């Protein structure tokens, strides 16, 4: 039963995707395009991985740790929606917790895909989302604790058959 519900829930998203793809000439009427307050524009606008990492975590290389687990398919047929799960094996107590997790796609037009911020109440530094990938590429997640300790997942290659940024 639970499984049924989940399928139905995810199915809505798939239908939505198809609707967007099918409409072809999709020209959203942008009344007022402005960034949401607090959104880190510099880090998200950076065009190169090094710059994106520098602007988001102020470092360009981070030691990998088995504690940061990135789960994604090795082959993604559709680069427009690649499911990625990140979970960090680290305590989530008031004194010591994972504060942020950054997700990068090395050669996307803007490599920083998302920046997730947790609190100790999260209980587990975990998230799942779907990302777009232009081509076969490396994906990596970098976690930072409230004390500033950083650790990176092993970069994982995802082979993309159809890019997700086509026009």
């Amino acid at each position, binding site marked *: 039963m639970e499984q049924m*519900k*989940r399928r139905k*829930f*995810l199915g*809505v*998203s798939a239908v*939505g*995707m198809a*609707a*967007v793809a099918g*409409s*072809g*000439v*999709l*020209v*959203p*009427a*942008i*009344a*007022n*395009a*402005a*960034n*949401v307050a*607090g*959104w*880190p524009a510099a880090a*998200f606008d950076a065009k190169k991985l090094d710059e994106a990492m520098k602007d988001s975590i102020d470092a360009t290389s981070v030691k990998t740790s088995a504690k940061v687990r990135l789960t994604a398919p090795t082959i993604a047929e559709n680069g*427009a*929606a*690649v499911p990625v799960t990140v979970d960090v094996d680290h305590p*989530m107590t008031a004194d010591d917790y994972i504060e942020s997790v950054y997700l990068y*796609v090395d050669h*996307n*037009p*803007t490599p*920083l*895909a*998302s*920046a*997730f*911020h*947790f*609190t100790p*109440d*999260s*209980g*587990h530094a*975990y*998230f*799942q*989302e*779907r*990302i*777009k*990938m232009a081509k076969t590429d490396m994906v990596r997640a970098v976690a930072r604790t409230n004390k500033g300790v950083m650790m990176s997942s092993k970069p994982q290659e995802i082979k993309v058959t159809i890019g*997700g*940024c*086509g*026009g």
Partner: protein
Amino acid sequence: MAAIGNPMIRMASHAKKGQIVEVRSLIMNPMTTGLSKNKAGKLIPAHFIQTVTVTFNSKPLCNVDWSTAISANPYLAFKMRAVESGTLEMTWKDNTDGVWSSKAAITVA
């Protein structure tokens, strides 16, 4: 134009104290990058959700900043430690002043 908004949250309605529950969410948004063109060769403007904030009983739980690399009609799952009964609220904001929110209740015993 494709549907937009319609936020949904799925979360267990009951949990034991201390249990870690998963929250899954979905919202309709084109998440266009501003880099691709339509059939007429004109650039499609960027239109995407930039922030998602989550509170539990009005206290911040987690938040995420998104780029255009997030897929259309974004799905997001995360976890929460169930400590007390209450209401989880999520708010999505996009770069065109769009704001949507949704709530889900949980009973913790």
